[in-house]
């Protein structure tokens, strides 16, 4: 595809249930990021994958959050035992390898709006 895609676009779940969010990055982009945007807030970094390196998980808010990436393609973000405070838009971004300028610009997907009732 031409851009980063995410699915589902919307997800409503009950407190305590597990959810899985999917991200398909742009082909050839070795780096992939997950962010969270709560209502009225900025973009909160969650996790970063770069090639075969160990992911940077420093932004994950709790051990209920985990993410995986298959090679340099699809990534899934899993939230276990969802809580109401997990309600947010979850954004995925990818970027291409290269010199620093190319390393900086991230291309975002449309996001998944998660609502935990």
């Amino acid at each position: 595809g031409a851009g980063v895609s995410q699915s589902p676009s919307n997800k409503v779940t009950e407190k305590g249930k597990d959810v899985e969010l999917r991200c398909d990055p742009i082909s050839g982009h070795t780096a992939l990021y997950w962010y969270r945007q709560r209502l009225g807030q900025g973009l909160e970094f969650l996790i970063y994958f770069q090639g075969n390196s160990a992911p940077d998980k420093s932004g994950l808010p709790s051990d209920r959050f985990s993410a995986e990436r298959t090679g340099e393609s699809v990534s899934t973000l899993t939230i276990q035992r969802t809580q109401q405070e997990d309600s947010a838009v979850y954004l995925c971004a990818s970027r291409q390898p290269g010199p620093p300028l190319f390393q900086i610009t991230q291309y975002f997907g449309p996001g998944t709006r998660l609502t935990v009732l």
Partner: protein
Amino acid sequence: DQQVKQNSPSLSVQEGRISILNCDYTNSMFDYFLWYKKYPAEGPTFLISISSIKDKNEDGRFTVFLNKSAKHLSLHIVPSQPGDSAVYFCAASAVTSYDKVIFGPGTSLSVIP
């Protein structure tokens, strides 16, 4: 501890006038700055960037100014158009960690026809 701040949550400007969006940062290691634009139900898209070796970068109607001593940057949009109505995020990165980009909370711009 917010390293990138956008103190105006919202801004309204008349069509044709100048829009000025401000951003302040606290980390003196930041040396590359970006502005992203976000429409509702879409992901942010890259708009313009500036390196710390410059104090101005221009791209069409969009100009970013950087004042390193004040740790302040601003995005100017001239002339403003209704299609510019969106949320604008300021972001910053450091040469020691280009992998990490820190985003501000965003400013919602409304351009009134």
